[in-house]
């Protein structure tokens, strides 16, 4: 297990877990989200390959209503 920070909250997750697996774990449909790892935007095409490392800072964003 490794510690990963997701939107500011620490979580213990399996080592080498991918971004796609985290999205599935969180029940997030991937169509409308963006993922940032350690301040770098990770393109959608890389989510299933991108493996997380201990202490990674992950940020998940979604579209919300706005003007």
């Amino acid at each position, binding site marked *: 297990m490794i510690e990963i920070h997701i939107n500011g909250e620490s979580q213990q997750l399996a080592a080498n877990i991918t971004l796609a697996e985290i999205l599935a774990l969180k029940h997030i449909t991937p*169509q409308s989200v963006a993922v940032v790892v350690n301040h770098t935007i990770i393109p959608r095409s890389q989510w299933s390959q991108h493996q997380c490392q201990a202490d990674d800072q992950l940020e*998940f964003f979604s579209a919300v*209503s706005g003007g």
Partner: protein
Amino acid sequence: MLTIADHQFESRLFTGTGKFTNSATMLASIEASGSQLVTLAMKRIDFKMGLDDLLSPLQSRGVKLLPNTAGARNAKEAIFAAELAYQMLGTKWIKLEIHPDPKYLLPDPIETLNAAQVLCEKGFIVLPYIHADPVLCRRLEEVGCAAVMPLGSPIGSNQGLATEAFLKIIIEQSSVPVIVDAGIGAPSQACRAMEMGADAVLVNTAIASSANPILMAQCFQQAVQSGRKAYKAGLGAVSHNANNTSPLTGFLTTRKVS
């Protein structure tokens, strides 16, 4: 037909998706407004709250999405937000808004111009939200913005076209579409902007904060259509003195009344 970048719009009323009491009212209001371009914001997901599926009902209605960079305080953050929106929504259209001051939400012109230049070079279709500054509008046009979005009055204030004199200059000088954004509080004000020759208006708060948003959305649609037609027809000249519309031949005064 209004063309922005390579996209054509039949409706010249653009709408926001914020401040509605629920998403059903928001969707029904957008439908009633006839809007074909709607703005969206972005936010960190709150996993406890879950995800509100905002996108699929909008996409199924065929409206074009215009994500904004609200929350960005400088050019660097706004560029990051635009890249984020591209990854999230697959669109290079971006409403560039940089307002570091939370009280009046007035846009920072220097950061906006810097961000616009970078984003245009990266191939984004940039629609910058700015003060009604004709000089800035020209500079934004020069760096490649697809349109300009000068404010009528502060965001969400419903104060109307406080910047009218400057909007007129922008409309006169601009060779890209001018979308009057922010502050339009009543259909009459949207109509006025269109009569002046604005290419479109963007309305959110005035519809969302109405007691009957769906009906108000219809009112805005009609006001925008009417204002556009009036602009095309050409308004009559304004004069200080009265000009009679009926012949003053004096038929009453020459007649003896018995």
